């Protein structure tokens, strides 16, 4: 959160930084870097594994995945998956040697349900067979793997029946650090796991989520950081037969937050719901890139990310990659991103990508909208006697509330409602 939502803009600068007549553009900070550095621009691009200048990879399936940081070239900002990210504001997460020192400690709490349930949070070695099943897909994630010596492993037992398990991650350091969290939901388990980030940190974090056969896991990642935090979080999930994952990301705080969730189906019958809510204030960069890999037949995915933006240089990025492989017969998939722009000077990038390698699917679709208030919504409410200000309040809260409603944990929903009220109070909405 910034102190003020209106920041003076240098004379002649574009209203929306980085937004030229060509439309989408590289992060202006990256451009400046590559243009002045003798090692920038084309010289570096030749070593990039991530596509070229604005040219997408031919297929999402072809993206490099490796546990070795050396396999990923240093970032230039011209890579397809980094082109919107202001790299300097990663505060070294892509290039410094990281360690677990400075990463937020995790505290386990069962906040609802059977508090005696045998949920375990263990610190295990990296070569423990229960962890390290998802290889990092970018340099920052690989750097986190290189930087950690141990993995925090949360195991949700099969006996779980709707418990709400909170991992409190309160940071208090600005040292670039690494963390690796693994969440295993045993076969048949039914639980909600909340990873609640508060305080501040400069953190590259990998989260592995293993939803075993017939498990039903709701995973919520809350980014409620203070203003200074930089947080890259690669959250990769794999789903077993008939497994259900509801993955929800809520990003409100932090200077730079970049969450890259993915869901991979390994057996038929899986269902992935991936929801997100973000609220960017002046100067904040909130980026969400997700990937759903339909590599098994008869699986369902539903993606909905909603964001609000207010203030100069508030920037959000949403990329949604859905890949339906030839094996993914009978897939049903939909993804949508909706952005509500509350003031001038904010920028929302939104790119849905859908790759389909088989015609034998039940459905696949995507949509993306970015705009101001919907006048028809206001008209409908006002035509029922509700004054304009109250109607706007209802519409904005309703827009954001749609994701909160999906979390289904009252205590978290209340907390998020409060956070939204605090955000909206800044612009008198």
């Amino acid at each position, binding site marked *: 959160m910034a102190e003020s939502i209106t920041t003076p803009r240098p004379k002649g600068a574009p209203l929306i930084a980085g937004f030229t007549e060509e439309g989408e553009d590289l992060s202006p900070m990256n451009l400046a870097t590559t243009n002045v550095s003798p090692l920038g621009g084309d010289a570096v691009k030749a070593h990039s594994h991530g596509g070229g200048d604005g040219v997408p990879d031919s297929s999402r399936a072809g993206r490099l995945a490796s546990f070795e940081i050396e396999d990923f070239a240093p970032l230039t900002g011209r890579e397809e998956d980094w082109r919107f990210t202001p790299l300097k504001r990663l505060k070294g997460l892509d290039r410094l040697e990281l360690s677990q020192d400075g990463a937020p400690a995790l505290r386990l709490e069962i906040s609802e349900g059977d508090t005696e349930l045998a949920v375990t949070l263990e610190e295990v070695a990296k070569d423990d067979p229960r962890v390290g099943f998802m290889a990092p897909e970018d340099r920052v994630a690989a750097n986190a793997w290189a930087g950690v010596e141990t993995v925090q492993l949360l195991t949700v037992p099969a006996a779980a029946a709707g418990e709400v398990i909170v991992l409190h991650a309160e940071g208090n350091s600005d040292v670039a650090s690494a963390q690796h969290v693994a969440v295993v939901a045993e076969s048949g388990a039914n639980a909600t796991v909340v990873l609640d980030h508060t305080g501040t940190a400069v953190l590259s974090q990998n989260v592995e989520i293993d939803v075993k056969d017939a498990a039903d896991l709701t995973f919520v990642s809350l980014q409620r950081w203070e203003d200074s935090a930089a947080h890259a979080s690669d959250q990769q999930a794999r789903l077993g037969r008939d497994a259900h994952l509801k993955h929800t990301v809520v990003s409100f705080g932090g200077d730079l937050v970049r969450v890259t969730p993915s869901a991979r189906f390994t057996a038929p019958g899986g269902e992935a719901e991936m929801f997100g809510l973000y609220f960017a204030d002046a100067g904040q960069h909130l980026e969400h890139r997700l990937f759903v890999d339909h590599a098994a037949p008869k699986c369902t995915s539903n993606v909905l990310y909603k964001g609000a933006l207010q203030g100069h240089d508030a920037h959000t990025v949403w990329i949604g990659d859905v890949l339906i492989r030839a094996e993914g017969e009978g897939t049903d998939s939909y993804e949508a991103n909706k952005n509500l722009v509350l003031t001038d000077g904010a920028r929302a990038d939104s790119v849905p990508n859908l790759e389909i390698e088989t015609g034998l699917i039940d459905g696949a679709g995507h949509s993306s909208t970015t705009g101001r208030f919907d006048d028809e919504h206001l008209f409908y409410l006002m*035509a*029922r*006697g*509700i004054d304009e200000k*109250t109607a706007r309040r209802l519409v904005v809260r*309703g827009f954001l509330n749609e994701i909160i409603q999906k979390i289904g944990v009252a205590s978290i929903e209340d907390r998020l409602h409060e956070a939204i009220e605090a955000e909206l109070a800044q612009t008198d909405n």
Partner: protein
Amino acid sequence: MSTLEIKDLKVGIETEQGFKQILKGVNLEIKTGETHAIMGPNGSGKSTLASTIAGHPRYIVNGGEVLLDGENVLEMSVDERARAGLFLAMQYPVEIPGVTMTNFLRTAKTALDGEAPKLRTWTKDVKEAFDKLRIDPDFAARNVNEGFSGGEKKRVEILQLELFKPKFALLDETDSGLDVDALKIVSEGVNRAQSENEMGTLLITHYTRILRYIKPDFVHVFVDGHVADQGGPELADRLEDEGYDRYLAKA
């Protein structure tokens, strides 16, 4: 008794090709307790009339006036018109994500009455209204119009009509897209509101079908932005037989 007067009303919209005149001088007078059917072919301006009276920003008034008991409605904001006693049942009710029906109904009722309804009687009233219109009570917890079928949306419009008790209801093609059963249920709701609240009704429709259930006192035929003919209920019967052709030929 209240009166809604429409005097020489002229309305248009901005299009890519410039300003387009739709209503070319409409005169109507409706008193509470009366039902007026406005009929006419597509594109004749029926829905424009309803939306203009409700204050939809798309419609630009360039002549005439609308008076509610002598007060100039056109100078009022959309919400002021509603609070003055006008209700538009929309042809295409919009979905409002994240706002539950319960929250919406209570907020609107509070705005219309100037005070929050008594919780116990309100809850009972809402439940009864749901029952009468045969709307699943679970809809109360759902978001406004979200995922409702076309027929369900129309029923929810009439539900609001019954709960909000306006002086005048503008029903904009409420019958379109309804099957016979839903048409009956919706019509009964309108008739209840009329008899209980002494409501005046402006019933806009393309078809005579709904007039079997809601009996009009007056029928007005709209053609090309003005009233081309008017009469009693017998005019509707004639339209049933002859259609709009003879008016269109003249126009």
